[in-house]
Each structure stands twice: as structure tokens, then as C-alpha cells.
């Protein structure tokens, strides 16, 4: 049984209420942080822990915090990114829904470490009921003196606000999130300046994922060094994985980083194998935007070593034979899945969610979707596959924010590993299942 740091009390009845959470040792991290530690000590612990951003990019959190500009007399902000919009990822929702106080505790400790007196949780519009749960939890925290003026008599003030988004994928990008939080259209900003220098309202800001902030709590409780002992290499600690797709037991699992992928998919403790006794075909390991990998590459690296659930092992081989841990949205596909149709679904999503600011993404995502639609409706040609490849290469790396890459990578990986399937679609369109029917039964928009 692997160690659980975030979800260890998840099954305790009433853990979403303050009393139960407190009884289970909640808010100890805040007590320890505010009374026994200085801000620099917390920063050091986080650095020692090797915690990496859990939102997708995997940037070391301690380093991100140390980049925060600290000019005298200028307010700093901590913003929690709860706009969990990556398709296939639902771990933050689970965490906030079940243990809202863990996030609030992490927010208080992190804000103290950063010297922020105002913190925000930006939550996506679709999580309206989670928003209500969190609002209640914040009220409870205020009522019990964990938020507000002079917390625990230490003289430290913190106000925590929630902001609900309108449901745009792009607002999960940190600068677009800040724009949206300021009440503007959620367009990503052009960097530099980075949020650590000029973020919310032009002031230094740290934007962290829900899980990252929650992980600060066990780091303070148990010490950074102990946290760093869990995991493998530079992937330390535990990670929440949202497992979905054709598996027996979909859900959110907390794993120690370094768990073999094979064990994760087939062990009864986790996914429990492929549904209906089918064969595994492919896995999208970290949310829809990371490259898809076929069975032989997800279970073993190109060098033949077992693939582990860690930032390095999943990234082994670059994008030629590897992928990314990303946000931990683990989508498993069985042998009956059509990679081309799946890719069309992804591309449709990115086309719909492109903000329209910069031209490669605005025009390219729509173009890719149209070509994929043409292919799956049986009208494609072989040159369309090459064109698709060319378009994705012209989007990748040319855009303001990573949405361009997020749209380009799945296309590139699907063509790289499953080109034969595309060619099958193009050369034998009569074998294709009726697309209109497919969309009708799935209650999706008409093709």
C-alpha cells in the first residue's frame, strides 16, 4: 500500500466539515508554520521537498516561489488555479469537493511563506457546486480564526477570496487566469513580464495548482526531506492521478511517483485492468494535450526499461517515443478505440477553446479540426494526413501561450504512432462506422 499524503483521511465521514477535519489533525501545518517557522524556512522546506507544479508543467514550486519579486510596500498575491479544464483531469475537483479545508490550509501556509495578505482561488464555472462547498469551508475557517486579521495571535493577516470563472479552457493558463480574475476577457498575456514580477493588478503574484498548494501541508507537517524520500529521482512525493477510459475502476488515485505504469493499469489497487477483458491499445498519460502513446511505448520505454509514473520516465525519449506526466489525466483506450475519431474530439475541443488572439492557434486549430472531420467522414486523402502534420508543426512553438502546443501535440503524436490508422481511414472509407450516427448516439453536436 503506497503512502497517502493528501487523501489519507478521504474516507472519514464528514471530513468536509471543519470539526472533523480539525480532529483528524487539520490546520496543524498552519499552526506550525505561523508559530514555529519563518517564511524563509517554509520556502526552504518546499525547496528541499522537490515539489513540482502539479498543474501540468512540472516546474519546481520552490524555485517558482523564490522568483517572486518582493519590493517594499507592494502587495503580493497568491492565486490558486482551480480552473481544472484539461480534458481527462478531475483530481482537483475531487480534492476540493471532499477535503476543502486541505486546500484552505495549504493556501494559508503558502500565503504566509510568500508574504501575501490576500489570496484568491479561481475556480472554473462548471464547478459551481464545488465553489459552494469551498465557500462554506472558507466561512468556517474565518469563524474559527484561521483567516482574517491577526491569525493565531501572530499578527499575520490573510483574506481569502473565491472567484468563479465562466468556463473557458484558456483561463487555466496562468496569465489568462489573472486577466479573467481582473474582470477582463481571458486572453493570455504576452510574457515577459512574468506573473512573479507583474501579475495580478501588475503586482507580484504566484499562481499554483490546487494539488500543489495542498501538498504544502504534508511538506510542513512532515518536513521537506521526508517528502523528498517518497518518489523517484526528481519526481518526489505523491501525485493524484485521474484515471479514466476503458478501465475497470476509473477514479482518482494517489500514487507515489515512480509507480510502474503497468502496475497502475493492471493492479486491482488502481485501475484494475482493461474493461471487458480487452487489450490495451493506447494511453494519454497526462491530460488530453500530451502526446498519446501506444501500448508498447507506454509500458516500456524505447530502451526497454519499464515505464514509471514519474516526470522523467514518462518524458523519456522526448516526444519521439515518450510523453509527459502533465496534470495526471490518465486516459486509457482499449483495442476498439479509433485513434482518429478520438483525435477529432480533441481537436474539436481545442478549436472551440482557442482564444483567438494569435493567428497560428486561431486559424490552425480550426483548420486541423476541419481536416480531421473530412478524414473521419471518409472524404480524406493521403495528402490530408501530411497537411495535418505540416499544420501542427507550424502551430507548435509559434503561439503566445501553450494552447497552441496543446492543440498540436496530440495531432503530432497520433500521426507519429498511428499513421497506419489514418491511412486506413483514407484508403478504405467504406469500413468506417457512420460518423453522424456516432455523434447522434453520443448526443454531440452534429458533424
Amino acid at each position, binding site marked *: 500500500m503506497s503512502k497517502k499524503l493528501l487523501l489519507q483521511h478521504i474516507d472519514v465521514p464528514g471530513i468536509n466539515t471543519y470539526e472533523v477535519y480539525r480532529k483528524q489533525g487539520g490546520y496543524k501545518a498552519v499552526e506550525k508554520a505561523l508559530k514555529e517557522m519563518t517564511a524563509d524556512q517554509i520556502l526552504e522546506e518546499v525547496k528541499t521537498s522537490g515539489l513540482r507544479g502539479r498543474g501540468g508543467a512540472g516546474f519546481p514550486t520552490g524555485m517558482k516561489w523564490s522568483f517572486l519579486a518582493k519590493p517594499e510596500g507592494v502587495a503580493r498575491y497568491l492565486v490558486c488555479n482551480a480552473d481544472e479544464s484539461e480534458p481527462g483531469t478531475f483530481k482537483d475537483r475531487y480534492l476540493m469537493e471532499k477535503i476543502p479545508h486541505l486546500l484552505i490550509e495549504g493556501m494559508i501556509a503558502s500565503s504566509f511563506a510568500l508574504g501575501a495578505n490576500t489570496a484568491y482561488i479561481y475556480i472554473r464555472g462548471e464547478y459551481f457546486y464545488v465553489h459552494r462547498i469551498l465557500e462554506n469551508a472558507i466561512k468556517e475557517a474565518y469563524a474559527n480564526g484561521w483567516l482574517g486579521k491577526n491569525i493565531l495571535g501572530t499578527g499575520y493577516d490573510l483574506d481569502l477570496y473565491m472567484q468563479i470563472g465562466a468556463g473557458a479552457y484558456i483561463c487555466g493558463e496562468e496569465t489568462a487566469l489573472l486577466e479573467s480574475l481582473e474582470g477582463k476577457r481571458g486572453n493570455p498575456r*504576452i510574457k515577459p513580464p512574468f506573473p512573479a514580477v507583474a501579475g495580478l493588478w501588475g503586482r507580484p503574484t504566484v499562481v499554483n495548482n490546487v494539488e500543489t498548494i495542498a501538498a504544502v501541508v504534508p511538506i510542513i507537517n512532515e518536513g521537506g526531506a521526508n517528502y523528498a524520500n517518497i518518489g523517484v529521482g526528481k519526481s518526489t512525493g505523491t501525485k493524484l492521478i485521474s484515471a479514466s477510459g476503458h478501465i475497470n475502476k476509473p477514479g482518482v488515485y494517489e500514487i507515489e511517483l515512480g509507480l510502474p505504469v503497468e502496475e497502475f493499469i493492471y493492479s486491482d489497487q488502481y485501475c484494475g485492468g482493461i474493461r471487458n477483458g480487452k487489450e490495451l491499445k493506447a494511453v494519454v498519460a497526462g491530460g488530453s494535450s500530451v502526446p498519446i502513446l501506444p501500448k508498447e511505448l507506454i509500458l516500456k520505454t524505447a530502451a526497454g526499461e519499464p515505464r514509471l509514473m514519474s516526470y522523467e520516465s514518462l518524458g523519456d525519449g522526448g516526444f519521439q517515443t515518450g510523453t509527459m506526466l502533465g496534470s495526471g489525466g490518465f486516459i486509457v483506450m482499449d483495442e476498439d478505440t479509433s485513434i482518429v475519431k478520438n483525435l477529432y474530439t480533441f481537436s474539436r475541443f481545442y478549436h472551440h*477553446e482557442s482564444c483567438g488572439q494569435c493567428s*497560428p492557434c486561431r486559424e490552425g486549430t480550426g483548420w486541423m479540426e*476541419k481536416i480531421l472531420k473530412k478524414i473521419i467522414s471518409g472524404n480524406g486523402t493521403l495528402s490530408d494526413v501530411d497537411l495535418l502534420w505540416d499544420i501542427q508543426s507550424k502551430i507548435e512553438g*509559434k503561439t503566445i501561450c501553450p494552447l497552441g502546443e496543446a492543440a498540436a501535440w496530440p495531432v503530432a503524436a497520433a500521426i507519429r504512432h498511428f499513421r497506419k490508422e489514418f491511412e486506413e481511414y483514407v484508403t478504405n472509407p467504406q469500413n468506417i462506422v457512420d460518423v453522424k450516427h456516432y455523434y447522434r448516439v453520443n448526443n454531440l453536436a452534429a458533424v
Partner: protein
Amino acid sequence: MPKVTIDDIEIEVPDGTTILQAARMIGGEVVPPAMCYHSKLKTSGGYCRTCIVKVEKGSEKDPRPMPKPVPSCRTTVMDGMVVRNKTAPDIVEARAGIVEFLLINHPLDCPVCDQAGECDLQDLAYEHGKSHSRYDFQRRTFEKIDIGEHIKLHMTRCILCYRCVKTAEQITDGRVHGVIYRGDAAEISTYIQNVIDNDFSGNVIDVCPVGALTDRTFRFKSRVWFTKPVDAHRDCPKCSGQVRLWEKGGEVLRVTARKDKYGEVESFICNECRYDKKNASDWVIEGPSKVDRHSVIGANHYENSVLSATDDRQQTGLPHGKKVELGEGALNPNNIY
């Protein structure tokens, strides 16, 4: 004063200069094309991505190359930076891709577009684009709408450069138009059927790099290359009064702001100058405007003028068009703008 090397040419520039500005200081072929950047507007640029360049060496202190192409209009130079524009084949390739993206939903209706001849997108496609399109789907279209008494919005042609939004925000009080919707459905729109109505509203027409915002008083009056640009000024209480008159047959067809050789407005003008002073007698004529842009006009009509065009063309590296004999009257100053 940082030193930057662009396409193997070194130049020393003031602190805070962007790569694009530094390239313009060098001039000629190293200048990346720009569609959304406008030197007179703050925070413009970064959207169209045509000006992307490759940074081979970040700076003297941190010589690592930048991992991705950067927009030169929004990237500040550092001491010792090494930049590649035309000399990087992958940048030339990427730029061709961007031009293709900009054109896939553009109607290419230049034959009926008022902007033709002074259109930045036309020039860009002419220099960096390809002669055919790989896009075989229906293009995005919008209805034409009048936004205000003098301005026509033809959204189908728009490339979403945000210049008009920034103009309205920075030179007028109370912007009433902006971008609504998302992705390739995004459009410039007035706030709930509002009209753009203020003394400086006409400037959005001048900053529009394509024919999306056109002057209703000039629509379909004449192709721009049949009109003669003349620089003129008057004492205007509201603006600088420095304008360009576009004449045809002794009649002033329209008044615009003066633009520099990158097609960017030199100083914004008010609506009184633009729409109400259409008699040559209202103005003090300074003389013919020097049109030295590397534009479609420059490649044809102005090609043969005996003035400075040759030098400019050598700098911009444009191929010479076919030679036309200088006909009678070619040395008449009225014919050689």
C-alpha cells in the same frame, strides 16, 4: 547601451529597445514584417506572429538560445543578443506558415477592396506568402456593418490585430468597441449595437492593416493607386493637423493621417480634418508625399519613377518589375509620386 546582432549586422541601441525597433534602425532586409505592431500604440504587437525571429544567443550574461521563436515586436534586446531573421531558414518557413494562417479565412477580395494597394496583408502575402492555398474549406464570413457615420466594418477581412481596439483605448475616452467571442469566431464588435462616435474615431481606419475598417466617405470612389497623395497641414485646435490628402482630378477624395514607411500612423488626426475639410483650399499643401513603401504599388506603378525608389528597392530586396519606358510627362512632378 546594449549591442545586438541581427542577421550578422551589429548595432548598438538604447536600453529597452525591442528587436523589431533595432532591426528598423538597421533597416532594409533584416526588418521583420509586422501586422499587429504599431509603434504609436502602447502594448500593441505580439498577436499576429509574423515578426517572429530566432534568438541564437540570449545575451552576453546568459548565452543560452531562446527555446522558441520570439515575437520581435515584444522582445527587448539584451547586450550581446544574436538574432536571426532572414538568415534562419526555419524562421522563413515558419513565417510562410503564419502568412498562410492569416490568409485561410481572409476573403482575398482585393479586386473589390478599398484597402488594396495600401494593404499590409497584401504586401505581406506578396513578399512572404505562396501563390496557392492548401485550404479547401468554406471561409469564415460575416455581415458588413456600419459602425458610426463614417466607418464600415467588414469583419470577414479582419485579421484580429487589435490595433483599432488599442487606438480607441489610448487616444479616445471610453472605448465602445472590442473583441467578442473566441477563437476563429472572434470578431470586432461595438458594444451592443453602439456606434463609434467621437472626435478621433476615424483613426481606427488608418491603423487597420487590412480592409476590415474602411472610410465610408471613400468607399468605391477610386482605387488608391489612381489617387495622388499630397502632404498638407492646417492649424487644427484638436489635432496636429498634419495630414495626407489623396487627390484625383483636382478633387480631394479623402484625408488620412500620414504613415511612415512601415505603414504606421505618424500622428493621429481628428475627424474634422478627416471628413469636413475636403477642399484643397482648406489646406496648406507641402508637396507630394514620398511613397517609398515596399508595397504592391511600389512594385508596379511607382517602380518606374525616377526618384529615390531604386535605392529603397535595393534595400528592401524586392525584385525589379518589368521595365516600362518613361512616357511623356513622366518628369511632371504630378505623375511621379
